[in-house]
């Protein structure tokens, strides 16, 4: 099972965190600091896996962003590596060539996408299309809500004139 997902920038800044196992706020900061130190200092040619406190951390670098997932000792590392890539591909498709700024300004959307992909620390959906469809459905709902809101505010604005 995946224990947490972590996105850190090359400077060690946190871009996204999702915890599937309980960690207190203090532990979280400690984990991020520790792993940031380990992962950011690894050379480019080394393998993408790190042993860490009896768990394994699989990470992959995309531009200036490191995607890390912490998994159990007996999980398949290559699979997790591909899950990361899968996630990135979906983000890419959604944002249209995703970059770090997209994630900073729309990190809640990244969370929604992650929620469709992983649930309770397991991969729940491996089809990009299905994820994209669900996210689109949610977004269209948001749009209609927005329209409604704006039309109501228009009505109110007109009424108060």
């Amino acid at each position, binding site marked *: 099972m995946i224990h947490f997902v972590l996105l850190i920038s090359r400077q060690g800044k946190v871009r996204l965190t999702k915890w599937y196992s309980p960690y207190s706020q203090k532990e979280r900061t400690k984990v991020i600091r520790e792993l940031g130190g380990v992962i950011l200092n690894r050379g480019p040619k080394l393998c993408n896996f790190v042993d860490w406190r009896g768990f394994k951390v699989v990470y992959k670098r995309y531009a200036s962003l490191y995607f890390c997932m912490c998994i159990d000792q007996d999980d398949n590392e290559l699979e997790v590596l591909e899950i990361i890539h899968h996630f990135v591909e979906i983000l890419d498709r959604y944002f249209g060539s995703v970059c770090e700024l997209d994630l900073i300004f729309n990190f809640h959307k990244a969370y929604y996408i992650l929620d469709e992909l992983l649930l309770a620390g397991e991969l729940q959906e491996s089809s990009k299309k299905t994820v994209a469809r669900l996210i689109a459905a949610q977004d269209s*709902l948001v749009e209609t809500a927005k329209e409604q809101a704006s039309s109501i505010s228009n009505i109110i604005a007109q009424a108060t004139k």
Partner: protein
Amino acid sequence: MKEYIIRLVYVEMLGHDASFGYIHAVKMIHDDSLLVKRTGYLAVTLFLNEDHDLIILIVNTIQKDLKSDNYLVVCAALNAVCKLINEETIPAVLPQIVELLAHPKEAVRKKAIMALHRFYQKSSSSVSHLVSNFRKRLCDNDPGVMGATLCPLFDLITNDVNSYKDLVISFVSILKQVAERRLPKAYDYHQMPAPFIQIKLLKILALLGSSDKQASENMYTVVGDIFRKCDSSSNIGNAVLYECICCVSSIYPNHKLLESAADAISRFLKSDSHNLKYMGIDALGRLIKISPEIAEQHQLAVIDCLEDPDDTLKRKTFELLYKMTKSTNVEVIVDRMIDYMNSINDNHYKTEIASRCVELAEQFAPSNQWFIQTMNKVFEHAGDLVNIKVAHNLMRLIAEGFGEDDDTADSQLRSSAVESYLHILGEPKLPSVFLQVICWVLGEYGTADGKYSASYITGKLCDVAEAYSNDETVKAYAVTALMKIYAFEIAAGRKVDMLPECHSLMEEFLASHSTDLQQRAYELQAVIGLDAHAVESILPSDASCEDIEVDKALSFLNDYIQESIEKGAQPYIPESERTGMLNISNFRNQDHHEASSHGLRFEAYELPKQTVQARIPPASLASTELVPVPEAMYPRESYQTTTVPSVSSDAASTELKLRLDGVQKRWGRQTHFPSTSTSNSTSLKTVNGITQVDGSNTANSRTRETYDSRKQVEISPEKQKLAASLFGGPSKTEKKSATGHKSSKPSSHMVKSHAPKSSMEVASEKTSVQQPPDLLDFGEPTVKSTAPSLDPFKDLEGLLEPTTQVSSAVNHSSTAAVTKSPDIMGLYTETTAGAHHKDSDILSGLSKPPMTNMVGGTTTMQVAQSSKGPNLKDSLEKDALVRQIGVTPSSQNPNLFKDILG
């Protein structure tokens, strides 16, 4: 508000405290607008843990939302359920989630499944009645739901394999459909059909097929198909391949699949990508349990990985080495491990590697001398991270030595231990556990060989006690050691003069805050005041191994009690019958006597390993630890025969007790595969024995040669040496390949006639010299059984030259089963007539255990089966005994122990 909450999430993510806003997020999920509600749910799942106080406010809303007709609301609620619902609140939402399993939207069904999976992880009892639902969902129309269902099923099957055997067929057919691209295109990933689902299915099949021949047979075709279809150029293809290898190594072995797995592994290892190398090493570690011989062809790759700058890869390689350690290569491996251990400062991993070193050293140590030296190194560098039990084991080994019949070797061992410890004491900082061992050994044997004077040793001990003045345990050990040395001196009739620093130390201890230290100091004073005879009876020299009879009924007090009762004291009423009126003075009297009696017997408790000989092992312990161990003792015994060839086998029986703890674990893991039943091993023969060897050994050696010769140019001689010592024979073959397989000439089949030609040969020589006793020894404990020899033989396969195997086999059979040796010899001479090349092949085939068995006749197997019974039970009993004594010091004075053992 929504924006604020999102910003709050961001603040929290950056590691600041945002708890003041949690309640607003909780309020947001009550909102009617879906947009706001969804943000609220997102925020609470990120903010709260399942044991947070606010959860109780959320449950009601979740219940309402689960009933909503908008499936997006339901989805949002289900996401929150997965994260937030804890054990207590499961019943509140459970019925609704079960209803949702039949929801028309597949997204909802999928999430409901995942939620149930989460519930199962949290408290398996709460959803145990719903297991059938998972089975039903497996047949869901939507592949996404089916894929999600595999997650909970994997967990369920991990916990209880047997009740899901009926699903094997359906899993196999699903896997087949997936591999044949019957799923919608949307599930393809990098041109692979639904690889994530494939991986999950393979994992499940690995569980279901492990040591189940029938189930495994169903899987062979489909796994083979996947092997063929996997595209090894893409990452995901390799992930699936790796999972296939895992599956193959876990299910009942199939020759063809093993071959393709070996192929895949060699592709992994030869690739340039570190990731693939890592996976290859890992896969090799899995497969090596089944077919040890595949390691040979990869030895150089493995050694490259060992010297790689990548730490992760290095660790993985150590894990592999740990798995393939034998008595022949233990020294090299443990040395390497210790070197590496010194170079890292990650405590977590240091502990792990230290315990592995200890385990390997205990299990395979070629000599006690080496064992003690290795232990010293481990303690020195990772002392505080090692289990205290290891220290006791070491003391015990020094105390018991080789065995009863060889006193000179014992004393040699001890004096060398004393010497090395005196040397080590010069180091500035030592771990506490190690100091305890040192103190104990110095106290017990410091003056035993007369090399060092008592005052020298006591001086050293005083130094220790002073230098580590804040460690009470060490001080306690030191005082006891002092007491023992003085006692030995008095008993020997010499005059004792205490060193001045010793005096001051005693004074300090007499006024110590620790009652334990105080008592020890007083005891020391008392002992010094006694005359030689009394001292000798209290602390006899070198008696740490004698068993001490502890009179639990305290019968020696009977007279005193009688006397007191006659004088009018009240008789003792057991605590259970006591009503409240108690005669305190009476109890105090008794207490006092108990304490004093312990004071005198104190020395006995020093070494917790040997208290009373408890003949009855606790039943529960024996039943849970049902791992057969008999074979595991051989490597240990083997040494005895090498040094003292004429040792009688009864010496072994006392030795056996020594190292069972480590051994047990090791074997438990190894024997896991064909569960050692007769039927299994017969069919295994065909896999591992004849077919495999005849076919692949030629192929192997050929590929090995080409591989080696290609690499030869850039490989330094050290590396080859290392390879030789790690992997035993093969590099020797490689060396000699120019002259053909001459090693199989009949003249050289006695190993000792080999003259060491090069350093490399020396290394492999070592292996061959060590091996025969290994085999010799099987004969001893169970004379007529050859079945236990099956496993050790297999161990040898990968490591040894054909010659050694044959010679050892001959050796073996001549001692163990006399009837067999002529057969082998006959066959042997027959084969030598053949051409050299062919000759070696047949020979290597011959020397495999299955062949030997066939020669000897299959009846031996049955005999072995029956004779295994008592043997196994016996060893279990012994093991239980050792465990009991080792772990829980069963004494009457537990508090004292707590102090000593910490």
